[in-house]
């Protein structure tokens, strides 16, 4: 096994453990957010191994930086106590949903083997700033510009929601 493959499996294990830690930690919301940071940084390392360098940098900056800081800010602003969530009232639909999605995942992983096409070699400069920027501003310029409307709508919505009371 090459060093790169070893690093991929190492970061994959770290990402899965950190995601499980985030979901299963029912005591402390801040610890959940920290586990989310670990999962996102491991995924960023996997992006580097898949030669998506710009996406890896943005993953670290936007996800592990901005988004998780926003979560931590809200958790600390609301000052949540850890023991305010008693056992859920109706458990049966949730357990049914977990079993069903676990079975779906199992079938998906079984069917995955040997169905994907062959991998082509990456050209020079793949995943760097130059190639991605060129693609973003020539072929994909319309979705890129549409994103600005989305951000504008999100800003207006967030300000109005946080300002007024609903009732």
């Amino acid at each position, binding site marked *: 096994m090459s060093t790169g493959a070893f690093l991929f499996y190492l970061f994959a294990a770290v*990402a*899965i453990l950190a*995601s499980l830690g985030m*979901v299963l930690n029912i005591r402390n919301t801040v610890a*959940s957010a920290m586990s989310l940071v670990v999962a996102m940084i491991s995924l960023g390392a996997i992006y580097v191994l898949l030669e998506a360098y710009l996406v890896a940098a943005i993953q670290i900056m936007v996800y592990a930086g901005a988004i998780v800081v926003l979560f931590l800010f809200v958790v600390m602003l609301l000052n949540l106590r850890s023991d305010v969530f008693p056992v*859920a009232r109706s458990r049966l639909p949730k357990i049914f949903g*977990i079993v069903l999605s*676990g079975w779906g995942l199992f079938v998906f992983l079984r069917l995955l*083997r040997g169905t994907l096409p062959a991998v082509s070699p990456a050209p020079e400069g793949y995943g760097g700033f130059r190639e991605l920027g060129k693609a973003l501003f020539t072929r994909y310029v319309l979705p890129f510009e549409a994103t600005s409307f989305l951000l504008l709508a999100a800003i207006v*919505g967030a300000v109005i929601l946080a300002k007024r009371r609903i009732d």
Partner: protein
Amino acid sequence: MLVPLEHVIALSAVIFGIGVIGAVTRRNVIVILMSIELMLNAVNLALVGFARAWANPGGQVFVLMVITVAAAEVAVGLGIVISLFRNRDSVDVEEVSLLKW
């Protein structure tokens, strides 16, 4: 490519499943939003893997779009959470039944 594409997609599917479990079972709204972020991250991983397999930057461009959508979603979602907390004094999803009949 360092590892087979199947392994990348399998990792993505497993992380997506963990996100689904979190979104379905937890009662804290903030943790549910975090689980949704985890699912979006799993989708990003699949997109990056396919982009690398076909050596096509289009997948990476759409990862940037997904990251933008996630940031917008978190801003609006946390605005709703703050507004909810002001009105109900709780972030428990089982106490929020405004749209239930």
